[in-house]
């Protein structure tokens, strides 16, 4: 029996006031009954627009049909056949601009809650079916994956399933990349990431942590000396940007990366953590993306009494997901739109005392298609602050580019790679994710990792057949 409700089955959430004091996960997830009810909203359209809307082409109507029938493990296996990180994607994918955007149910009312269902299925599997995945038959070839973030994990998963011996090189002491250092616990519990990594380990993927490729070993050495048939570079977005305004080295000014790394990776959110952090009582986060929302919501949870987002365009241009903005507002984060910092003002002893800002107006659309902001002359004003977090993006990390001869990069520093295959200017070297595109989404990086895995399989197969002919 179809469910004709025009709206999604509501997602249970922790109370905004209570949750703003803890790092517990905000959205608590569907029950089996809620999931089956929501699954019955799917029309199972023949042309399946949702599948095309998904960067990794999850067989959405099939898995939802299995959920509707109460066959949750079957649904999990359907998702897993094209997506190696369902519990992660069900939480952090921007479904509203992908699969759900093109859902036919969305033409009148809300689309099917595809993301919520994916998350339910993945969580149900983690709770009930932790038998080890099938060990693939080894094909005798080795691939090195650099970086264990979403691009690297997706690439490693597909290659392992195809029988490759995969080693993932990670610079930090724990695998997961931005999933562990960047995205906070309340949005993506670290146990989930750990379970996904363990899943890959059980498939034979080796994680070599504390390995900075470009320093301890080069891409050429991986190919020429260490016996890897191909290399995938998924090293992520890189160095944090600053605004180049006075006062950015004052104590209490953080990049979002540093602030989030201290909170998430180094667990500064826990009482008695050994990693120090300035929690601040009046905090400003500069920027309007998901990273800015994460930083603001962390600052609030650490106990700041006043947290505000400073964004130079208007609410309509916010690059963050609507859901993240909504959650931040519910938790008491204030928003100052059409505002831009001009300098950070020192307080006592080299700490932040405040920030001078100007008001902005929006002019004609710029190259990005968004209306470009202009300063309203004479509109300077000062806000008192003790912590400033810069969440205005990143620029590419130079380590691999500088140590890999012949690897072509864009003028802005990103690695040049074919979108369909991840192939770079160097044979056998593939790349994908933020290292190629600049900061984007988890699922976009996973899609790139998957396409590269297919291309690597093709490359190695061709290389072998050429060698056997020669």
């Amino acid at each position: 029996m179809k469910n004709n409700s025009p709206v999604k089955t509501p997602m249970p959430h922790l109370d905004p006031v209570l949750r703003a004091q803890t790092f517990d996960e905000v959205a608590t997830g569907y029950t089996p009954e809620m999931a089956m009810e929501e699954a019955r909203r799917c029309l199972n359209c023949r042309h399946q627009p949702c599948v095309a809307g998904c960067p990794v082409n999850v067989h959405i109507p099939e898995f939802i049909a299995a959920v509707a029938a109460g066959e949750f493990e079957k649904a999990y296996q359907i998702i897993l056949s094209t997506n190696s990180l369902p519990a992660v994607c069900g939480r952090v994918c921007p479904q509203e601009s992908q699969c759900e955007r093109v859902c036919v149910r969305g033409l009148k009312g809300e689309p099917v809650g595809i993301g919520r269902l994916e998350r339910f299925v993945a969580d149900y599997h983690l709770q009930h079916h932790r038998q080890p995945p099938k060990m693939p038959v080894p094909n005798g070839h080795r691939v090195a994956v650099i970086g264990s973030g979403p691009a690297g994990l997706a690439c490693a998963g597909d290659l392992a399933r195809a029988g490759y011996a995969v080693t993932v090189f990670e610079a930090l002491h724990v695998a997961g990349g931005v999933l562990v250092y960047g995205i906070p616990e309340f949005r993506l519990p670290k146990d989930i990431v750990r379970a996904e990594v363990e899943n890959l380990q059980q498939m034979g993927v080796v994680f070599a942590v504390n390995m900075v490729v470009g320093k301890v070993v080069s891409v050429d050495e991986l190919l020429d000396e260490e016996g890897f048939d191909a290399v995938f570079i998924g090293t992520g977005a890189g160095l944090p940007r600053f605004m180049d305004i006075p006062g950015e080295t004052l104590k209490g000014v953080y990049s979002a990366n540093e602030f989030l790394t201290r909170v998430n990776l180094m667990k500064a959110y826990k009482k008695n953590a050994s990693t120090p952090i300035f929690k601040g009582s009046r905090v400003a986060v500069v920027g309007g993306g998901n990273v800015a929302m994460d930083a603001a919501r962390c600052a609030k949870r650490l106990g700041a009494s006043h947290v505000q987002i400073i964004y130079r365009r208007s609410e309509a241009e916010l690059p963050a997901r609507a859901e993240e903005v909504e959650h931040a507002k519910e938790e008491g984060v204030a928003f100052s739109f059409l505002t831009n910092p001009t300098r950070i003002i020192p307080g006592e002893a080299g700490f932040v005392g405040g920030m001078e800002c100007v008001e902005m107006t929006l002019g004609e659309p710029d190259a990005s298609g968004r209306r470009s902001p202009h300063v309203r002359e004479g509109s300077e004003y000062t806000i008192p602050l003790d912590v400033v977090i810069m969440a205005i993006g990143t620029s590419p990390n130079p380590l691999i580019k500088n140590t890999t001869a012949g690897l072509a990069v864009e003028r802005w520093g990103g690695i040049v790679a074919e979108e369909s295959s991840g192939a770079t200017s160097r044979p056998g070297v593939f790349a994908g994710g933020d290292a190629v595109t600049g900061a984007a989404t988890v699922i976009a990086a996973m899609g790139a990792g998957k396409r590269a895995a297919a291309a690597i399989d093709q490359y190695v197969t061709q290389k072998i057949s050429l060698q056997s002919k020669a």
Partner: protein
Amino acid sequence: MFTIREKIPLNPTVTKMVVDAPRIARKAEPGQFIILRVDDEGERIPLTIADYDREAGTVTIIFQVVGATTEKLNHLQVGDAIADFVGPLGRATEIEGLRKVAVVGGGVGCAIAFPVAKKLAQSGCEVHAIVGFRNKELVILAEDFKAIATRMKLMTDDGSAGEKGLVTHALQALIDSGEQYDMVFAVGPLVMMKFVAALTKSYGIKTVVSMNPVMIDGTGMCGGCRLLVGGKIKFACVDGPDFDAHEVDFADAMARSDMYRPFEQREHREACNLFKEGNIDEK
């Protein structure tokens, strides 16, 4: 496993450890550093690579006990393992084409100055070493410097070893006596590097300092190690740690360096208390 092979106290608060790290030993160069975590709950801290042995596969670190992490590290013994040990990070010190260099080391900074001095000497460069300490008790590596330097000045604040005075006095005396240096390489407390930079600027001598700011990942991800160099933000982990001393904003670096001192002192006290109460197994 990053097993500790040797542990030698160099003075009451400075320890030398030789650690199994074959991959890092293969690539390490003077001027670079490692980041370590003592245990699974620990902080990541950067420490200089004081030496390396490519054949034995070991890396030597020299550290001063200043906070909780170095306290815990100092309680590890030969045969124990360090949880995480990553490197070699940062850019190696550039020594090409240098004929005569004054290497200035202050306190535990000598642990960075020495491998650079040694590499310079091995490349055929004439090395004058100027090393300074608060007192005789705290002197480290003096014999090592003596072995490779053609001139050596040991300075202490109280005159209990070598000459009484600051490294800048000794450096100025050498310059005034007619020594002409292609470069001065200085590493030590920020205030020392600041005054070395001021001195050599007045003589127009190219000077390089090795900076050691607060750091987390050490690979260019977090931006915590930023410095103002020539008015621009630079990251010590990927752009450094060596910088043109005459471009570094030392006042800014000094303000940033004590950012977490109250946290560090509290954590260090707590770590010490744990050891005192016997709450942690001392092997």
